């Protein structure tokens, strides 16, 4: 499919409408659909959630944009509902959490591999190893508290192994801020990558904050508290790589381009015909919204949208297993931490990070406790008698 970001008109905003029945579609099957269908649904919910978040922030600071923002946002909100409601009710919050971490692993890996800026590629790989570890800790929780195998969701696309230990991921805020791209120099794919991963992490944080207290098990509550804190660190990190001097309208334009890019990536890979039709519909909607915002941008800023966007979209996000890339990154970079905007060996961490971490872990580490001695086995730990204490 060859899209032209500067010329394709998509569906006009006025025609982007739904009924309540349309918003609540048959969900995908937790048992039969490919894991990447779940990954795409989760990510696109995050992309739309970010659309709303940005739109509201922009509205609070730009009175004259409040009406067009509200008009586009109304559609985005309904898109978000339709997408998010594709998650089936028999998929528990912890099972969905496994899906969230698989998004973080595979989408971040794809982005890290495609990112042309070496420093930013390192930023993505840094976050990747931390989310990779979260998957392992949640899988241990699912096994040991619920007696369920996380791989029934992961479908062996991603490893369930320790990454950079969650207990060591806690850093002082001053060590979570990175160096941003220069908006006048960065490639479009760099900007789309940053926006995509920031959106994914922000929704992950918000999701864990929402469901954390719904768990009755105290260790589950602690684990969600711990990992939600890391996700907040990740949002801080990814937000900081975006040039803060981009204007509001420029950012809005880039948001719409990110949405077009992500729906396009979904269309390219989706195997479920019903879900694919939704991605195609929303790709056309986003092209219509992009046109709407590009026109506003050009009218108000007297700049050509081509200054910010190129005609061609980058190659789509690859929805496939990145096992070897992740393992190689693990071998080479698991020992890294951060000091300011730089990545350093753990031995060179700042005193403020060490002090912060030591304090947070002073009553014990939920992530270490839940996964003490944990080795993922097909069918859970209980499937292998040698691993079971009785």
């Amino acid at each position, binding site marked *: 499919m060859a899209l032209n970001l500067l010329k394709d008109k998509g569906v006009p905003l006025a025609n982007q409408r739904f009924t309540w029945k349309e918003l*609540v579609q*048959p969900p995908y*099957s*937790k*048992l*039969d659909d490919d894991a990447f269908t779940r990954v795409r649904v989760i990510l696109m919910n995050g992309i739309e959630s970010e659309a709303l978040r940005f739109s509201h922030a922009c509205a609070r600071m730009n009175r004259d944009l409040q009406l067009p923002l509200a008009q586009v946002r109304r559609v985005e909100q309904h898109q978000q509902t339709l997408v998010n409601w594709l998650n*089936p*009710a*028999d998929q*528990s919050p912890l099972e969905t959490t496994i899906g969230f971490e698989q998004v973080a692993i595979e989408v971040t890996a794809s982005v890290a591999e495609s990112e042309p800026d070496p420093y930013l590629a390192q930023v993505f790989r840094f976050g990747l190893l931390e989310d990779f570890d979260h998957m392992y800790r949640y899988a241990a929780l699912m096994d*040991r*508290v*619920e*007696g*369920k*195998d996380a*791989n*029934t969701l992961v479908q062996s696309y991603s490893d369930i192994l320790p990454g950079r230990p969650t207990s060591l991921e806690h850093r002082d805020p001053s060590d979570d801020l990175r160096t941003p791209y220069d908006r006048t120099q960065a490639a479009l794919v760099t900007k789309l990558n940053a926006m995509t991963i920031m959106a994914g992490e922000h929704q992950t944080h918000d999701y864990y904050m929402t469901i954390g207290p719904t768990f*009755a*098990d*105290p260790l*589950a509550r602690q684990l969600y508290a711990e990992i939600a804190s890391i996700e907040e660190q990740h949002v801080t990190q990814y937000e900081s790589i975006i040039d803060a001097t981009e204007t509001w309208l420029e950012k809005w334009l880039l948001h719409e381009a990110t949405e077009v890019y992500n729906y396009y990536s979904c269309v390219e890979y989706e195997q479920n015909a019903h879900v694919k039709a939704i991605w195609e519909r929303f790709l056309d909607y986003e092209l219509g919204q992009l046109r709407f915002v590009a026109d506003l941008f050009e009218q108000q800023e007297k700049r050509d949208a081509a200054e910010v966007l190129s005609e061609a979209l980058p190659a789509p996000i690859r929805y496939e297993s990145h096992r070897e890339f992740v393992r190689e990154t693990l071998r080479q970079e698991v020992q890294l931490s951060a000091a300011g905007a730089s990545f350093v060996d753990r031995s060179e961490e700042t005193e403020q990070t060490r002090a912060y971490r030591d304090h947070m872990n002073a009553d014990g580490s939920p992530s270490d406790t839940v996964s003490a001695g944990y080795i993922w086995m*097909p*069918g*859970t730990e*209980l*499937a292998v*008698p040698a691993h*079971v204490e*009785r």
Partner: protein
Amino acid sequence: MNQQSHLGTNRTGIAAALQRAKEMQAGMEAFPPTSQGSAQDIAQVRIAYAKEAGPLGSVPQPAGLKNKVQTAVKAVVGEQPTLFMDKLGERLAFERSGTRLYEALLAKQNAFGSFSGGPTAGDLKHVLNEEYNHFQLLQSIIEQFGGDPTAVTPAADIQGTMSQGIRMVIVDPRTTLLQSLEAILVAELADFTCWETLVELAQQAGEDDLVQSFKQAHMTEQEHLQKVRTWVAAGQGRT
């Protein structure tokens, strides 16, 4: 911790705020419903969606469709050839989760101690080990039939959804040992009945070896059920 709930400031009932409740009820006539009909209207939406919905999912194809599977399924289930594998998967998932539930019960017993007529740690460990043995038995049987014991069958998925509430009660640090036993009683009742189902399915299939194994497991589950009933009765002061 006392096994019985104590008297306190429960605010959920209308009697806890009679005056405010009267004020609410006084508003009923002045502010009637804005849409006509009744709670039964909900059924129309459910029916519409049910007619359009696909299934939760499928049972995975047994590897190589071994003869044993073909015979068993044809004999047992007529037009629903996958019922047997589905139910085996369900029971396996239940026993595996049940093992973890008894681990949680042990922690509760450790935290609070038992009560007169209640279970000792040894009692709970004994049941736990038998649940675990049932899990291993089912694992082995599914493999014999060419199935994948790591797969989640639709029936296993459903029982997972049903069991969430039981687990929430048992792992909640605020629930007593007795309350946790009342929750596990629900699980044991289901377990006992479902093993009965497996016995009958195996009998219909003419799988005599399986029938013996399942009958043994069923008897063990009957003992579990009896024990839990006895503990609960003791905790509730019933004889």
